């Protein structure tokens, strides 16, 4: 009985979301192929960012709200390639190359700060995100074009320095998504290679019970799959084992001779660098960079999605990531339309999904703290009981 209750309690969040979606999808009136298309796009767009959260959770550092640091590093890389006019895959790789050292430095800084605030990593990394956001804005708004050379006038504000709020990433837009163009169409048939307009070869697949055609961001999905394999492999390495040990108990790990602080810093650095790449992948899909708020949203939405996928502050798997992306974004797509059809106001659906994202984070945090406190209480009680026996 207890076990059944635990299973329900552990999967309550995804279950609630499945129920909400089950009601909202028919209300929205979207076709299946539209939903599948949107979901595939969003899986390609967001998974990498969310996956970057896994490693700090493994090391027992909770949700890394400091991932926005990595996102900012990625955006700085993108700003530079925009300025230099580097396009296509070379542009993306160069942006990663520029972003990496910045992300590493920020990650080391973040790791040191978090080591000074053990036990409240989450709130500290959250505030750290704001703090670095200030530094980032200072850099982008005042130093770029003044001390840091930016030559392209379309990037700069009319006053001559500082980057515009919206930067078009036309040069790398959809470049990874469309690297291996893949389309699935309705009606029955088999997979085949075909040449469509302009001599570009597409992988075409035909499936039954689908109407219309769906584009698959195959290359992005391959990158994400490789990253998942990396995480699975990483868990088995010495470093990964150390991190898991630290996640279980810092004092035990310390007495086993694991350099706790150093390993924690490495976990954060990896997470930050991956978030940097994740943000670049995200923005190549979006096609425009909102210089001053793209990174803020990245952090919030990634964390909410991961939690909706059934992860907790102390445990998250790759399956949680994908379940989370699908459920969260399914709601993202249908909520405004469902709200409009239900109450006649799209704004309510919009606010509803913001509320759900924040509410879900709050609930997940509460459940985690609650459970931990209960366990601690139980442990203390059993300790007292033992003492009484003696």
């Amino acid at each position, binding site marked *: 009985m207890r076990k059944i209750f635990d299973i329900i309690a552990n999967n309550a969040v995804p279950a609630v979301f499945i129920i909400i979606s089950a009601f909202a999808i028919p209300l929205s009136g979207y076709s299946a192929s539209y939903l599948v298309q949107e979901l595939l796009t969003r899986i390609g767009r967001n998974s990498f960012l969310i996956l970057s959260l896994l490693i700090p959770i493994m090391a027992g550092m909770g949700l890394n709200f400091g991932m926005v640091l990595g996102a900012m590093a990625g955006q700085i890389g993108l700003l530079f390639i925009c300025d230099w006019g580097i396009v296509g895959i070379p542009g993306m790789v160069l942006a990663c190359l520029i972003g990496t050292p910045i992300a590493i430095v920020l990650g080391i800084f973040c790791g040191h700060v978090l080591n000074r*605030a053990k036990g409240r990593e989450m709130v*500290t990394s959250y505030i750290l995100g704001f703090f670095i956001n200030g530094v980032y*804005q200072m850099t982008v708004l*005042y130093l770029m074009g003044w001390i840091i050379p930016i030559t392209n006038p379309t990037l700069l504000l009319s006053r001559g320095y500082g980057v515009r709020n919206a930067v078009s990433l036309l040069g790398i837009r959809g470049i990874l998504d469309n690297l291996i163009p893949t389309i699935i169409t309705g009606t029955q048939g088999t997979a085949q290679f075909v040449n469509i307009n302009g001599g570009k070869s597409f992988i075409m697949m035909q499936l039954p019970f689908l109407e219309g055609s769906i584009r698959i961001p195959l290359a992005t999905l391959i990158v994400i799959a490789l990253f998942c394999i990396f995480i699975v492999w990483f868990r088995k390495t010495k470093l990964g084992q150390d991190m898991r040990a630290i996640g279980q108990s810092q004092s035990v790990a310390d007495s086993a001779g694991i350099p706790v602080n150093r390993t924690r810093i490495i976990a954060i650095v990896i997470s930050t660098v991956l978030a940097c790449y994740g943000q670049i992948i995200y923005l190549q899909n979006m096609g425009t960079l909102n210089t001053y708020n793209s990174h803020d949203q990245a952090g919030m939405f990634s964390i909410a999605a991961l939690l909706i996928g059934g992860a907790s502050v102390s445990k998250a798997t790759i399956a949680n990531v994908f379940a989370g992306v699908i459920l969260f974004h399914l709601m993202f797509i249908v909520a405004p339309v469902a709200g409009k059809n239900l109450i006649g106001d799209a704004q309510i659906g919009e606010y509803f999904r*913001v*509320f759900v994202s*924040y509410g879900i984070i709050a609930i997940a945090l*509460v459940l985690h*703290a609650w459970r931990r406190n209960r366990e601690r209480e139980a442990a203390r009680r059993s300790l007292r009981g033992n003492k009484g026996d003696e």
Partner: protein
Amino acid sequence: MIKKFIENAGWPRIIIALFLLALFVAAPFVGVRVDTSLSNTLVRFGMNGVMVLAMIPMVQAGCGLNFGLPLGIIAGLLGATLSIEWNSEILAKLSELGTLYKISWLNDLFLTTWREPIGFASAIIIAVPIAAILGWFYGKLLNRVKGDEMMIATYVGFSSVSFMCIAWLLLPYKHPTMVWGYAGKGLRTTISVEGYWLHVLSDALALDINTENIHLYVPTGMLIFFAFVALIVWIFMKTKTGTAMTAVGSNPEFARASGVNVDRMRTIAVMMSTILGAVGIIVYEQSFGFIQLYMGPFYMALPAVASILLGGASVNKAGILNVIVGTFLFQGILTMTPSVINSYLQTDMSEVIRLIVSNGMILYALTRKVRAGR
């Protein structure tokens, strides 16, 4: 001596205080008037003071910094909007009272001079019970999540703000100055309090010197109100409940052993904090002139948290003096940086400086070694 002072105050505070001093010194040289800057600082001090006071009870009771201040702010917003919605009814009821007891001069007063103060008072009277109820639930929640209060408070604040975004659209407000004109329902994003209780406190007993050489404006009423609330908090912290609260914060095990109900104390502290937040936002609005709904209260906790930390508070210890010093320093920097730096560099860096100073301050407080006690 000096070394000890620096140790006590902490480097960031001294740097920021010196920075502010430098700004005041530099102001005349770049053509910024010190007197108007000082007036602005005082006005902003009065506006934000009560919200910063809201930090004290929770910090003292060991619940950490109240990042969930938006919850209290929401209660205040409800009070403010309802006081406008029901303004005419309240006044009518009161004048009925005057007629009933045959006191016609009282009746006149209600409809003329006292109209605005009554509106303001009604806002507070409506807001306080709402804040108390919300605070009670919020306190119960925080009691279950000891050790993680700050992160959860942040998200309780955020989710309550986004929940209220839906509520502001759906609640049956009718007053024409508050709802969207074309739809006839749903509150506007900003609502003017002009004609209701604009500057009720600020202009009461205000000192307004406006000669050729000097422009000085001191919002005496608002400052007195702040002093009054601060006094209440101070007295409360000296009562038996207040000292018990402090004991809970500094050593919960010891407090429990000496028969203090820890959870109850914490709940009271959270309720107080929420109530002060509600009162604080109403004071803020009467001076600012507008009620900001929807995403307005979203980030309002951060400046308040930063202020009290700037004043020398830590994550588990705070006093009235911290509030006064901190709010003055923080608001001083907010008023001085735009004017001084803008006239020097010709750019508006205030937003960025605010971000860096406030979050840097919070970060500094969070990363300091806390004495073993939890």
